[in-house]
């Protein structure tokens, strides 16, 4: 048919796609529009700690008041200044043999040792200059002046005293160190404050041309699908399109996502323009403005909403998908996005009330417990709520409804997977081998999370910093780096277009592992198979995002009870014979023998034409 009524669809979709690409290009392009000039003011704003600022300032002198147009050059110069500062710290505070030689050269010229020599040798710019001058003065003051001592004796004393001073150099340098966390903050702050602020000054324009244009374009691409034909499962060309079959476009998207995640977790200074972009919005929401994670939260929520609209259209024939997608959008936009910002505005501890331990792995960290217990009613509520969620709500709801009540209806990670990730669900590995790996890895992460949290609590309550010889802080930071950042972010989401949309939920999420136990062993939820009607076509397995070989159960007529099943319901939707149904509990197939033989008085049967007339 493809008749004239549909002629508008293709141009609208194509323009939408173009608009999306322009928006995307502007979004990425804005990262490269700024120049960077490091000024005193920028330094003051970026490094609030006076000691640190005074320590690093002389080292940054070469960068001061120069305009750098290349962002990478600027950031990496700043970074290398900090790392050089750190690496050469002990050397710089050590009085070297060369310096003694230089002093001795001066001494030879004058004929005797003199304290005025010291600044000329050590200089006066750096902190260590003053330190070394001062120390050597203290130790060798008695030697100064024309005392007629032989040069060899002066040199010997200087060398002995220097060695004495140098022996304790770490006592001094420990206080001079700028640690990695602060360094990161300073690099971010310096970049932000040195930036020429093109985006910050034209937020409105950039916002419209990137986010708004892209969103509008995406919607123009998505919505017309509703008018292309009757509702139903249309997975046409999923495996011939390189965006969805793991091909070239998929790889490019993966590279982009991985780069963004690495920037977010480890190099936020590269995305300061994105932070500026949403700064006014966050100022309005939380009163203080945007941080590097704000843009992430915003784009994340936007992706769930826009791709949620796609779900509404793609599955418009299925109320189940409409219901769960609505739920996901609600929880993401309210619980994960708005409420935490409003809590900040109200000066309360901020949290995502639907997130819970062990997915929220730092819930039991000392700083969080301290902050919650010391901030009154709201803090206590959040603490009690957070514990109740995983102690009471998980077993209870999972018993009645299965894992899905959380994983595909509430959770933010699941929310992104079910909306933005939906086009990639067919890429999850269905092999037995993948299942074996999955079980080892996900339960390993759960064990890691439990040990890490247990150790943190042990330290919190006893004050003892090590447990069985292991530093509990090291455990926590290892978990945060390997699991929190690399696994759940970089791999978990970055690899959607290659490994499917539930990489994290399937292989990594400790909460999913915990809920999975309950679903597997103590839940009423199962997917039932309708008699012997499976035709083994494989649609269910192919479109299972969790990599469950659904068909292997269905073709045996067996119920599917698997700890990993998140109950998205897509297997049931794509089944061409209606064989699968998500159910909370068994259904009796009993015939009431006392009633089955009752008859009715049948007068006359309407013809279908009469029936239609009656209905209308």
């Amino acid at each position, binding site marked *: 048919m493809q008749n004239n009524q549909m002629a508008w669809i293709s141009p609208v979709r194509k323009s939408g796609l173009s608009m999306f690409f322009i928006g995307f290009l502007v979004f990425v392009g804005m990262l490269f529009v700024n120049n960077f000039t490091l000024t005193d003011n920028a330094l003051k704003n970026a490094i609030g700690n006076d000691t640190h600022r005074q320590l690093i300032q002389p080292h940054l002198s070469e960068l001061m008041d120069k305009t750098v147009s290349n962002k990478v050059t600027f950031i990496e110069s700043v970074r290398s200044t900090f790392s050089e500062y750190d690496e050469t710290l002990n050397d710089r505070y050590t009085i070297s043999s060369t310096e003694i030689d230089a002093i001795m050269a001066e001494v030879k010229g004058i004929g005797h040792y003199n304290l005025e020599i010291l600044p000329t040798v050590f200089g006066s710019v750096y902190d260590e200059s003053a330190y070394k001058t001062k120390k050597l003065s203290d130790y060798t003051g008695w030697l100064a002046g024309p005392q007629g001592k032989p040069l060899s004796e002066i040199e010997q004393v200087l060398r002995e005293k220097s060695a004495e001073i140098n022996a304790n150099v770490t006592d001094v340098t420990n206080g001079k160190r700028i640690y990695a966390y602060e360094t990161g903050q300073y690099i971010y702050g310096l970049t932000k404050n040195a930036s020429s602020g093109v985006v910050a000054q034209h937020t409105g324009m950039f916002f419209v041309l990137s986010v708004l244009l892209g969103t509008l374009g995406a919607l123009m691409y998505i919505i017309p699908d509703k008018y292309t034909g009757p509702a139903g499962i249309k997975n046409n*060309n999923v*495996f011939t399109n390189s965006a969805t079959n793991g091909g070239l476009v998929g790889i490019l998207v993966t590279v982009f996502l991985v780069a963004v995640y690495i920037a977010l977790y480890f190099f936020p200074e590269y995305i300061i323009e994105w932070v500026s972009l949403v700064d006014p919005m966050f100022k309005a929401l939380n009163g203080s403005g945007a941080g590097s994670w704000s843009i992430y939260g915003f784009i994340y929520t936007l992706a769930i909403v826009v791709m949620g609209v796609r779900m509404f259209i793609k599955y418009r024939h299925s*109320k189940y998908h409409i219901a769960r997608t609505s739920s996901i959008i609600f929880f993401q936009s309210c619980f994960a996005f708005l409420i935490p910002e409003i809590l900040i505005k109200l000066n309360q501890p901020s949290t995502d009330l639907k997130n819970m331990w062990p997915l929220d792995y730092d819930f039991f960290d000392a700083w969080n417990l301290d902050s919650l217990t010391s901030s009154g009613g709201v803090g206590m509520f959040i603490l009690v709520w957070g514990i109740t969620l995983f102690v009471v709500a998980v077993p209870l709801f999972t018993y009645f409804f299965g894992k899905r009540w959380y994983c595909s209806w509430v959770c933010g990670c699941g929310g992104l997977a079910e909306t933005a990730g939906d086009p990639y669900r067919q890429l999850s590995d269905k092999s037995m081998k993948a299942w074996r790996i999955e079980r080892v890895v996900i339960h390993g992460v759960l064990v890691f999370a439990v040990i890490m949290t247990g150790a943190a609590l042990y330290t919190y309550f006893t004050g003892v910093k090590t447990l069985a010889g292991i530093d509990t802080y090291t455990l926590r930071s290892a978990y945060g780096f390997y699991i929190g950042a690399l696994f759940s972010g970089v791999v978990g989401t970055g690899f959607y277009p290659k490994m499917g949309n539930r990489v994290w939920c399937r292989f990594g999420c400790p909460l999913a592992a915990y809920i999975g136990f309950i679903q597997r062993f103590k839940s009423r939820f199962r997917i039932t198979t309708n008699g012997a009607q499976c035709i083994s076509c*494989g*649609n269910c397995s192919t479109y299972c995002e969790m990599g469950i070989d659904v068909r292997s159960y269905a073709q045996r007529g067996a119920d599917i009870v698997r700890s990993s099943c998140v109950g998205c319901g897509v297997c049931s939707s794509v089944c061409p014979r209606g064989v699968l149904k998500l159910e909370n509990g068994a259904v009796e*197939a009993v*015939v009431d023998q006392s009633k089955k033989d009752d008859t009715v008085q*049948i007068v*006359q049967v309407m013809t279908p034409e009469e029936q239609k007339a009656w*209905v209308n």
Partner: protein
Amino acid sequence: MSRLVIIGNGVAGVTVARHVRKRSDREILIISSETEHHFSRTALMYIFMGHMKFEHTKPYEDYFWQKNRIDLKQGFVCAIDTDAKHLTLASGEQIEYADLVLATGSQSNKFGWIGQDLPGVQGLFNYQDLLLMEENCQSTKRAVLVGGGLIGIEMAEMLLSRGIDVTFLVKEERFWGNILPKEESVLVQKHGEQHGVKFLFNTELHEVVAGDDGRAKSIITKEGDEIPCEFVGLSAGVHPNIDIVSQSKVAVGRGILVNDYLETNIPNVYAVGDCAEIHVEEGRNRIEPLWYTGKMQGEALAKTIAGERTKYERGIWFNSAKFFDVEYQTYGFVGNEPVDNISSFYWQHPEKELCIRINYQTDTQVVTGINTFGIRMRHEVWENWLANSCKLKYVLQHLKDANFDPEFFRRYEQDVINTFNAQNPNSQLSLSPLHWLTKRFTKEQTHAK
């Protein structure tokens, strides 16, 4: 030597192999010329439409066969010697057997139309057909399908997914008229038309005309109308593939003749699935070219071969299909034309493609079968109702129990009851409540047989 050799790796042959393996340790060999591994024939359409790749249609991972010591050989059996108990492959290789299972499947029907073997004309049954169709559709803009059944509607969906124009020639006056009652036929037809299919009823193929390139360029109907097309899909049913078997001593009719135990006239030789023609004492022998029956026959035959001689009994009839977006299920028996002493209660949604037809004996009101379109029904419940000869009132009032639609779907039981009550003003039925609370706390499924 006690080697079991199975010719054909479709669902019937593979089911025999799997179930024999469950019961015995003997050597099992499956020979197929189609593909190395068993795949789901019913999923061919999804490969063409890009929903899946071929790998996804394999019900068992490749390691499965070795792990279960089921040997596979890709080759074409060109001779069967039942005296010497050996097979000859096209490669010349000879293979001996102790037991032989023929599971050679079907071939597409061709009725001697002129030009039926031209390039661009094909049926769709096996993997090679799929590859051919892929090739044939490279530059196709218009297609004509011949014969109004399930494969035809699948081919229509496949072709439309590539933007190819589809004209459907149906010999009968309505779609799938030898199976579906009129209302259901019309429902499917309208749905197909919404998707863009042009149906021509009471129309038969006369000739496929070749173009200058030697490929099909148009068809001519019996009425003499010419329809230009680059592709002709033959979907006028299938017949047992017995080309090789018929040259052996195994008795054949339309298919390979077997008794209720799926045994042929030769000891230790069996036939199963599409290719088997089951002897019936009174009436026409049965050929059951269905996925479900192939599987059930395979299970029964495996028992027999493993030493527990078992009759194939197909139990209460069921079938299901999907026409574009509309799912169809049937339980029991619903004829395409009115039958004496069988009445029909029919409900159809005023706008959506949803309908239910419940047939019952006019005198006793015992329900004999159901057709349902767009509403999923629970197999086990219907099997129970039919096995227990439940009457119409009971079935209507308990219709909720049989619903198998996903959660949150709009339910139509009340509409069905209202329609019935409107038709029969003297007997006001009401739905019996679903005891959802008690149901939720019921421990395990109970089976009433």
